[in-house]
């Protein structure tokens, strides 16, 4: 347990990992633990990784519990539970010196010189005793962990009962026994408690425990989206699965289609007739959607696509995390069509950026691509319940330029502009306007009938391939991007860290938390760093990033991919040199890894100052 010393004031900051083989239930053990922890006043943040196969391979879940907002999965482990030798071998190096290791003595051979508190737990034996098979190992472990952090047994019992509710009384009984045996064993052995969770009063209804994928589904719901079409793909499937449960309750509709092309096509059709539509997918599926995305941009139909990125290329590492679809999102179509690219930074942010994605999409009649990733999508975290009494539906004609970025305190919503009665008298669907946006008639409106064609067309929608027309319509379409880029100036991007810091860090998406913690760690070591983390990756918030860059001596760009895609864009746009910090290993970058980068750069600065003397 880390506490006290950090400048970001944590009394409690506890990192637990449970590791074993796919199919042994380590993940559900972790999820139950996290769910119990979330019922205390602590914040919870999980990270999980499992094999692409249904069975076998390495699986693990990591849970961080803290008394304050959690920004990343953290670095070293306070407690590690291993079910087998492979799990031990692969993860023991992550355990802090002096941390706690829980292991099954029947399955794991320990090396002699471990600097850790060693707690043997006969998982296999106790599981067989309780359930007659090895399938109860995870619940035995859960019981023992319950003792270790002084969780009330009753809380765990309720969770286990819920979990197995659909499996019948016999299964519930066996698992209760497994839980009890685990708890009792730890108590008998008088394991020293490493965290006290028992008597913390629960937080009430202010906080939800959500995965990033669920946050997106809820964001869509709040934004007024009532249609989704999808095709299953790891790790994005839970977005659709959540919506398919919720939509029928609120007169929304969810279609599972025969492939990704059909999914994005159906969403485009739904949006064409006036519905806000969401298309969740992951990289390989996203690739198949580009033709229709391109069409949506040409037809100026709003559409929100979420890419929960996973390890690539090709089928790649389906269950691992990576930030490697940025290029595809910005550039991956034939010809030139504008679209907006956003990247949420956390589970909570996924909720608000989804609402924002719909607002932008409706306001500018553009496809919006939201890039999240496996680490955000599957992670569970505590999220403050937004104040839904402060949702303000803006009038699309009046409030065009004043849409605020959604926050817990207030949420603006905006729908696409429709033509006025006057405009319908001589309706030109693709009228050239100052901001490139032209009112869009909803089918059913008399006099609004128009042709939307993917061929180059005139203001009225008629095909026209003359040089002048192609140029003027290209300008119309791209004008929206310029207007959006300018609108950023009224929505300043936060910059963290001291204004006089000479080292700056730029990142995008899910690395925000790790960079923030790295900054704290650096500050503890007296190194000052500024950090900017734009949510909008295209169009670029040009002016603001320029202002950020201009005061720096060294720029570090952090991202989780091999080639440095974001760095490439920043260099193209701003002509700066950057120190690129990539990680391409299927797992999130840690605060420590970033800190090491910062320290190296600080070293350069020092040398440089010396040289100047």
């Amino acid at each position, binding site marked *: 347990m880390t506490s006290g010393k950090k400048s970001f004031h944590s009394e409690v900051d506890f990192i637990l990992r449970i590791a074993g083989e796919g199919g042994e239930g380590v993940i559900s053990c972790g999820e139950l633990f996290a769910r119990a922890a979330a019922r205390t006043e602590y914040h919870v943040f999980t990270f999980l990784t499992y094999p692409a196969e249904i069975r076998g391979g390495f699986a693990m879940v990591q849970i961080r519990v803290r008394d304050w907002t959690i920004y990343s999965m953290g670095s070293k482990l306070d407690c590690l539970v291993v079910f087998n030798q492979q799990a031990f071998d692969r993860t023991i190096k992550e355990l802090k010196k002096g941390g706690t290791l829980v292991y099954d003595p029947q399955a794991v051979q320990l090396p002699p010189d471990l600097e850790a508190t060693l707690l043997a737990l006969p998982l296999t034996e106790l599981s067989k005793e309780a359930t007659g098979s090895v399938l109860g190992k995870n619940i035995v472990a859960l019981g023992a962990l319950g003792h270790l952090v002084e969780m009330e047994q009753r809380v765990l019992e309720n969770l286990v009962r819920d979990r197995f509710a659909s499996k019948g009384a016999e299964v519930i009984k066996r698992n209760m026994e497994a839980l009890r045996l685990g708890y009792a064993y730890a108590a008998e052995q008088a394991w020293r408690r490493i965290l006290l969770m028992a008597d913390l009063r629960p937080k009430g209804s202010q906080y939800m425990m959500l995965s990033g994928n669920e946050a997106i589904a809820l964001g869509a719901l709040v934004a007024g989206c009532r249609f989704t079409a999808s095709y299953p793909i790891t790790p994005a499937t839970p977005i659709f699965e959540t919506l398919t449960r919720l939509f029928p309750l609120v007169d929304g509709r969810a279609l599972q289609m025969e492939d990704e092309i059909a999914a994005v*096509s*159906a969403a*485009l*059709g739904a949006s064409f007739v006036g519905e806000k539509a969401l298309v969740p997918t992951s990289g390989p599926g996203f690739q198949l959607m580009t033709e229709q995305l391109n069409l949506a941009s040409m037809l100026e139909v709003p559409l929100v696509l979420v890419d929960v990125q996973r390890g690539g290329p090709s089928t790649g590492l389906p269950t691992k995390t990576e930030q490697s679809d940025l290029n595809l999102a910005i550039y991956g179509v034939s010809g030139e069509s504008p679209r907006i690219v956003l990247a949420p930074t956390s589970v909570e942010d996924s909720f608000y950026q989804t609402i924002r994605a719909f607002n932008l999409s409706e306001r500018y009649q553009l496809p919006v691509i939201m890039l999240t990733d496996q680490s955000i999508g599957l992670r569970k975290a505590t999220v403050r319940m937004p104040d839904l009494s402060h949702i303000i539906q803006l009038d699309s004609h009046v409030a065009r330029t004043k849409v605020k970025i959604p926050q817990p305190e207030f949420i603006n919503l905006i729908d696409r502009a429709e033509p006025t009665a006057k405009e319908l008298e001589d309706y030109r669907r693709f009228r050239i306007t100052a901001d490139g946006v032209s009112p869009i008639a909803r089918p*059913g409106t008399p006099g609004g009938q128009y042709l939307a064609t993917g061929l180059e067309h005139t203001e009225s929608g008629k095909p026209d391939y003359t040089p002048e027309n192609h140029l003027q319509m290209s300008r119309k379409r791209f004008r929206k991007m310029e207007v959006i880029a300018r609108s950023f100036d009224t929505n300043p991007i936060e910059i963290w860290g001291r204004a006089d810091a000479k080292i700056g860090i730029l990142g995008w998406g899910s690395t925000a938390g790790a960079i923030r913690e790295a900054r704290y760690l650096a500050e503890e070591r007296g190194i000052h760093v500024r950090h900017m983390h734009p949510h909008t990756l295209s169009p670029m918030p040009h002016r603001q990033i320029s202002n950020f860059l201009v005061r720096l001596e060294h720029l570090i760009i952090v991202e989780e991919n091999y080639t440095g895609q974001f760095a490439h864009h920043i260099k193209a746009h701003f002509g700066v040199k950057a120190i690129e910090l990539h990680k391409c290993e299927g797992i999130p970058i840690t605060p420590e890894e970033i800190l090491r980068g910062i320290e190296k750069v600080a070293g350069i600065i020092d040398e440089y100052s010396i040289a100047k003397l």
Partner: protein
Amino acid sequence: MSTALPNYRRKQIRPVWCSGCGNYGVLRGVEKALGNLKVPAEQMVVVSGIGCAGRFSHYLNTYALHGTHGRALPIATGVKTTRPDLTVLVVGGDGDSLGIGGGHLPHAARKNVDLTYLILDNNTYGLTKGQSSPTTPWGCVTKSSPYGSPEDSLDVLPILLAYDVSFVARTTSLRIEEISAVVSKAMQHPGFSIVHILSPCVTYPVLKQKALRERIEPLPEGHVPDNKAAALQLAYSSDPIYTGVFYSIQKPTLDARLRHLQESALERYSAKGTPPSIPSLMERFL
């Protein structure tokens, strides 16, 4: 601003088909059907793919979406799912509907989406200037098969019957009145209806008007369209080539299926079946 009922032609855009193209006849027939049914133009959405046939959506004065090659059907599925109040017509060529877009057909059939699909079949890729298509007969010389097409052509109607499309008909551009009658029936049918329309291309005449005229014949008087086995047998006949409604059955439309889901979801949610508020749904995630 009110809807011009008798005339469904879009004023601003005139057809660019070659003179003599079968598609003119199809357009006439469809206009007549719309006239019969008196669908208000603003209540209609025409979705079409790419190809000469795909230009269909340009010429009717409705809401219209001329999308990408082969994707008219899933686009239209999205349209009809969200707006069951709209009348949806889908149009594509043989390449568009049976080649690149063929994979979508069985799945629209499984949903029984309530829309009408016109497949304008000229046995060739007209717009790209005469390559062989999925319905080009074996051995035909085309731009892309200079020594004769090596593949067998598809048996279109038997395939649609195997998909259990709930309304299957065939007609031809040579018979404008029949188009009007068959398309009217198709549009009135609750569920997924497909009309396979043989519409010869005069510029790349793989399907020849004359040969077609000699072989077409209306379905036997006594054919009962809910008999799939009989429909199949007639569908396999290539001389005569029968025209008319081969198959027509009733099964729940996609809209009915989804309403059923919504009802059971609401029932499960609360005994009274009252829809929950958004905040109450979010509380499930506490």
